[in-house]
């Protein structure tokens, strides 16, 4: 009897640990942090409750591990954004203009970078994280912890494989934003122009 129970217990432990081993946050973080530079295209769909069709915009992005993010909106209007440790900047005729620090906005951008770079430790502070799937096809669900965030976001869903593929922000008020990252590649290094954009 005793021996049977013990071996049963050992088996259960094994099963649990191998199940937990399947694909965890640690591995996801490592996987997403691997590439130094990611180039890709994006489509943003903004679903506003009162609009019959979403506001769709398209463009390309460059995510560089040690620099930040370039977000180049092409249609329906052209506008370049840059997020770095210094904050968020917008390009106008005179070059990059650092936008005045809006306290809540700055914090949101930090989240945005954390999501793209798979910085789960940065996300875990503010959200409950639930990960499912495999390294090739995973889903991460973020549910806000604090009362304040709950009043803004209902949930954030992130899907991906080697890289992040879609990000869906569900706002408490009913609007939602869907970001699709397509043709992402980690093969290309930063071009000279891109290096210049980050350096400026």
């Amino acid at each position, binding site marked *: 009897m005793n021996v049977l129970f013990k071996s049963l217990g050992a088996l259960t432990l094994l099963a649990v640990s191998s199940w937990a081993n399947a694909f965890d946050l640690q591995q996801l973080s490592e996987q997403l942090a691997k590439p130094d530079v990611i180039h890709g295209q994006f489509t943003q769909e903004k679903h506003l409750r*009162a609009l019959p069709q979403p*506001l769709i915009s398209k463009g390309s992005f460059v995510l560089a591990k040690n620099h930040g993010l370039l977000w180049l909106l092409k249609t329906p*209007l052209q506008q370049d*954004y840059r997020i770095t440790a210094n904050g968020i900047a917008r390009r106008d005729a005179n070059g990059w203009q650092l936008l*005045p620090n809006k306290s809540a906005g700055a914090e949101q951008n930090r989240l945005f970078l954390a999501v793209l770079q798979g910085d789960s430790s940065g996300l875990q502070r*503010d959200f409950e994280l639930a990960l499912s799937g495999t390294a090739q096809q995973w889903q991460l669900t973020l549910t806000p912890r604090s009362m304040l965030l709950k009043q*803004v976001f209902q949930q954030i869903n992130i899907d991906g494989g080697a890289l992040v593929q879609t990000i869906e922000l569900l706002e408490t008020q009913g*609007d939602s934003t869907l970001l699709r990252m397509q043709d992402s590649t980690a093969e290309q290094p930063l071009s000279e122009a891109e290096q210049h954009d980050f350096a400026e």
Partner: protein
Amino acid sequence: MTLPSERKLPWLFLSLLLAVVVLAAWQWRDGAPLSANLMELVPGTNPDALELRAEQRMQEPLNREMLVLVGHADRQQALTMAQQLGEQWQASGLFETVQWNLQADLPALRKQLLQGRLAMLSADDRQLLSKHPDAFIQQRVQALFDPFNGFTLVPSQDDWLGLTGRIQNSQPKHGAVQLDIGSGALVADADGKSWVMLRARTTGNAFDMNLPLQVADLLQHSREQAAKGDVQLLAASGLLYAANGQQQATREMTWVGGGATVGILLLLLLAFRRWGVLLAFVPVLVGMLFGAVACVALFGHMHVMTLVLGSSLIGVAVDYPLHYLSKSWSLKPWRSWPALRLTLPGLTLSLITSVIGYLALAWTPFPALTQIAVFSAAGLLGAYLSAVCLLPALLKNVELRPAQWPLRLAERLIHLREALLGCIRTPALLALLIAFCVGGLMQLQSKNDIRQWVGAPQHLTDEAQTIARITGFQPTSQFFLIRAANQEQLLERQAALSERLQQLVNLDKLQGYLALDQLVSAPSQQQQVRESLNRLPSVWQPLLDLGVPVAALQNELQQLQTLPAEDIDAALAGPLGEPYRTLWLGPTEDGVAAITSLQGLNNPSLLRVQALDLPGVVLVDRLGDLNKVFAATQISAAELKLASCVLIVLVLMLPFGLTGALRIVALPLLAALCSLASLGWLGQPLTLFSLFGLLLVTAISVDYAILMREQVGGAAVSLLGTLLAAVTTWLSFGLLAVSSTPAVSNFGLSVSLGLAFSFMLAPWAGRHEPVAEPAA
């Protein structure tokens, strides 16, 4: 030996004393009637009730609130500690509110933003809307696509034109402090650490006697607790300064009072070698009692600074018994009543002159000095009465056989002086002295600053500066007061001022400002916004292109047109109004009034210029005004000094005649001049307090001149009496020089110098000296 009147006197005095003790007990029935409010001590510079109200409004948070930064390299650890401290402090019962995170009421915020779409739009946005409506629409289209726009509180379908987003973004920034949206805490990053802001508001204010000390203790305890987790606390509050001031006052009172007492008792024992002589301290105790009772009776309470400065009364009060005790070197055998009879005229004169000197202080516009003057004058009267009525009876059976060394010392001093006069004649000495005075006076510099009143310790000011650097909050004591006939005019005036202040901000001359017009615009401007909005349909095609239904836009415009004009009270009621609420003074006798508060170090004269041609706008700069009053008071103090001298001459003319009186008064004046010169030679500034000190010295040292003039018991005995009196007085005043409050220490230094010179010059008051008139 004892006259019948002298048998009755002690009993009469004892009944008076009993009455005073009963009065004192009644005054102290609800605890010590002490106050520590610095502002009670400085002169009221303006009789303007509204300015006073505005000032109190601005002062209030300083005296009730504490700002703490909880810092750690790891933000989460800092947040955890802030939360922990917040809970502990809330439970301490010392605070009304403790706030470390913002529990934003988003529905209320949304409501206020929607309601204030016309009234709360910033001046820049209003201008864009009226001058470049096409750009206004273009920016809105951009914002709708902008993924980094930050979340807007109001959903797009309730605000297609994006007015609430603009209002949200134009709110004045909280310095370098950012909202941590996870926890709702306000956090600033600096020096490699995250600093979480914790704000606490106490139940009472900084001038409650116990609260500041309790708050300081709690903070100290929290600091130690935080240090265990490697968390650093930075704190700033008027309460901490008050706690420090109280501790310092207590410490100094113990030092000055205790030091003077021990020193004087030792001196008495060494000189008279009888335990009974310690009874000479009775007049001191009675004097303190009389002083305190008179002070509380007249002012309702006593300030701690009065106690500190008043403790120097010990040295003056003990002079009365010394007057006749010192006669034991010449009167053999010495008996108390006959000795008193011999010295009574001198004693009485010295009481009158000292009281005149002290009361001269009462006419300065400084409540602090008025209190000290009343305390001292009443104290001296009490000391005199007990020295005259009670002490001789107590000393009736004491036979004094004083030590001979003090007399020998005095004789040696007299010989020395005669030897000196043998070499250099008095006129030559006087010339030398005058040269010394001229040289010193030329180097004398005047300096007056309210900061001399506060011995603010370096660590507190350093911490406050660090907090200002990290958070970007740098509240200043100056502010603008704006008066107007009605709200419309008030907002217009405030907006005109804001426009100028913004230019200073752009030039980096000012860090920031807060004014009501940043929250709500005047009704006429709200009407202009309404009109500008009406012109939008001709340019809003880009929004329609995105798919926004034209009906939705028209509906929104319709809503905006019917939005009622918002007034100041309505705007302040919402959550966004919170930081502005202190600024609104509301209805006044002749209209309404508000404050524009300022941030960051700035130049008062530059600020004053801004208000010059703006009607109804004045800069309130209490510290600057006070410093001006200080300088003006210096002159009136000098006049008072001369007036008190004239009065003393009049009193002294009765016993000494005009020449004698002039000489007796001229010596202390010369001594005061010498002290001034010494300050110059020492590189010490002349402050209002050194001047007050010298004013006092004149009063006290007239006493020495009288003693030397009367020469009861010979020159050596008189000099010895003067020496004893000067040393005891110096023991109490001189110790004030060690105070860490610049004002008190300056006072002590100038009195010490004055006493030294008075003693040195006193022998020239003697009748048989062939001296030139020093006042010539």
